[in-house]
């Protein structure tokens, strides 16, 4: 594999020829916020938090789906990017009902962490207070749509790693929601293996274990990556 040279925030960085800009940023010990991205799952470029400036590119580029190129000059934090990121996080908070104080994920939530990272303490956009549902039909888990940010990590982990495809996205625009099966209560979808992978990778308090109380959720987003790695390297064979 060839190694490419690029510059990130003025620093010389080398990256594998098949790396994404996000991988290059992280391997250089730098940071850019992400929500929809999760190592091990197909990237979708949906949350737009990882947008970076690449010199010579007319538009901002999502680091998670952009391939590195030799000589690329990348900036992860410009005044413009910082402004847009903060606005994006405000929009996330305004579109759902994120009442952290009574949330299972409080303290272990990636949305919360990103809000801290971008310096957001309140939303300048009016809260929409959407009326959404809680699906508690599954024997072990629950889905609180009020806290879903539509990152589709659950959709992808269930489809790509558990290979069941219980989840999908239904409807359009602000009516979009995660749906189970044919838009059924989750507990009625016989295909669900109760593996809990979707719960583990959910960045917020939307998917949680029934026994979790407020502030008690322990997500394990890294498991998706570990599973993929273990499978590709046949950790369970020839031991």
């Amino acid at each position, binding site marked *: 594999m060839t190694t490419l040279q690029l510059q990130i925030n003025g620093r010389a960085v080398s990256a594998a020829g098949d790396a994404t800009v996000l991988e290059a940023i992280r391997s250089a010990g730098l940071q850019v916020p992400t929500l929809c991205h999760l190592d091990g799952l197909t990237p979708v470029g949906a949350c*737009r938090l990882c947008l970076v400036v690449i010199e010579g590119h007319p538009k901002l580029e*999502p680091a998670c789906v952009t391939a590195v190129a030799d000589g690329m000059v990348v900036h992860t934090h410009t005044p413009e990017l910082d402004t847009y990121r903060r606005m994006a996080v405000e929009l996330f908070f305004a579109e759902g009902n994120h009442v952290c104080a009574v949330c299972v994920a409080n303290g272990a939530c990636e949305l919360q962490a990103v809000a801290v990272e971008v310096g957001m303490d309140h939303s300048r956009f009016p809260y929409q207070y959407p009326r959404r549902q809680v699906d508690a039909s599954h024997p072990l888990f629950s889905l609180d749509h009020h806290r879903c940010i539509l990152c589709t990590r659950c959709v992808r982990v269930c489809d790509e790693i558990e290979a069941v495809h219980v989840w999908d996205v239904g409807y*359009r625009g602000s009516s979009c929601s995660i749906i189970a099966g044919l838009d059924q209560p989750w507990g009625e979808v016989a295909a669900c293996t109760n593996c809990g992978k979707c719960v583990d990778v959910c960045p917020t308090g939307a998917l949680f274990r029934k026994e979790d109380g407020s502030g008690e959720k322990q997500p394990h987003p890294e498991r998706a990556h570990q599973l993929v790695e273990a499978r590709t390297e046949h950790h369970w064979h020839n031991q």
Partner: protein
Amino acid sequence: MGVSWRCCDATACRAAGAAALRQRLEAEVGADRVKPVGCLRLCGMGPLAAADHADGSTELVAGVAGERRLDLAHPFFLLQRSVVLERCGLVNPDSIDDAIAQGAYAALDRCRQLAPQAVIEQVARSGLRGRGGAGYPTGRKWQLVAAQASPTRAVVCNADEGDPGAFMDRAVLEGDPHRLLEGMAIAAHAVGAAEAFIYVRAEYPLAIERLRTAIGAAEARGVLAGLPIQLRIGAGAYVCGEETALLHSIEGGRGTPRPRPPYPAVSGLWGLPTLINNVETFAAVPAILREGGDWYAAMGTATSKGTKVFALSGAIPHTGLIEVEMGTSLRTIVEAMGQSPPGQVKAVQTGGPSGGCVPAALLDTPVDYESLQSLGSIMGSGGMVVIDGAMAMPELARYFMRFCVDESCGKCLPCRAGTVQLAQLLDRFVERRATAADLVQLEQLCGMVKATSLCGLGQSAPNPVLSTLRFFRAEYEAAISAPVVP
């Protein structure tokens, strides 16, 4: 020798009572002298019928009883330059014999004698640019697809046409479907494609019916030389016109865009290199190959060649379908062709929800890609809506923003949540209860949604707001209930 009639049998005239007019004419001169045809252009006056007299003269009448005579020497007709629409209104769209008698498939036959590269060369020389909105050079796109190392490729026609105020593609599909099939077959030959798809929205039932008939007839005749052309009916989501969303939808998935690259030319339908063009783009191709690329390039401006079809509507006496040379001024279109009295127009909206408004003071702007873009509007696919003083600009902007709220696919945050907030901000201006801070917020959020959205829908959703702010800022400021603090 009596007169023979061509009766418009396209959607607008059907809705206005074309069937009654046709029955009357059939009773008068006999069914064999009355031919159903596609759009006769002045749709707003429909139903329309044209009488072809034995002496070669033609008359145009309108109204269910044919009671109104229209002036064919009016600039509305005289200033048209029909290339894409050259057979629309002349042929029976359901008759392949009629189409062939009037020249259909001749260019395809000729192009089969040419090497694919020579075909691409003519398209490149013509200077034709995509008519779906973005204006990418068609020859370059064909070249890119042809150059991919893959044993086969796919050709896709984008007939989704979801912009409010646009009906150009529908007119081609309803008026001269064989023209599209011929253009697609030429493209398939040029890029080495073994299959072709037409993606058309379900809201176009007549277009779908005529396409089915045309494909069936063309296959039965063998004119397509074995190229299978399949119809795919979309449910009618605006975002499904975005090329990557459209391809997902054909594949049976959810119609949501994905980040590009890879572009469809490299990896499109089921991973195949895919050529995707708009209806009007394909429909221009047969004439280009028949007359040569240089002939086409001689029309239009330095960077915008040929002709463009527009759907002219709004606050003007003449509404309908026009095809004009690129570079024609908006004033010519609106005042001469549309017959709008001077001084009546407030602005012309082009490009639909992705476009913007050109104010009356700039009516001398030529219609070409660059001129419109420099004014913060776009050519778009060809919707052109004339706005008069009765329309308040924040309200117009809100109309388009609400459209985007409803049509966002919801995949990316800025478009899904940002358009909702933008529409609510616009509510405040329409209801005249905005604050100075709202105006700042509005502009900032427009900038953010434009710069950060995943696909063209979100990236261009703020355009109607930004362009009305640019030229009609006073209307927004007047809606601020508290005084503006400098």
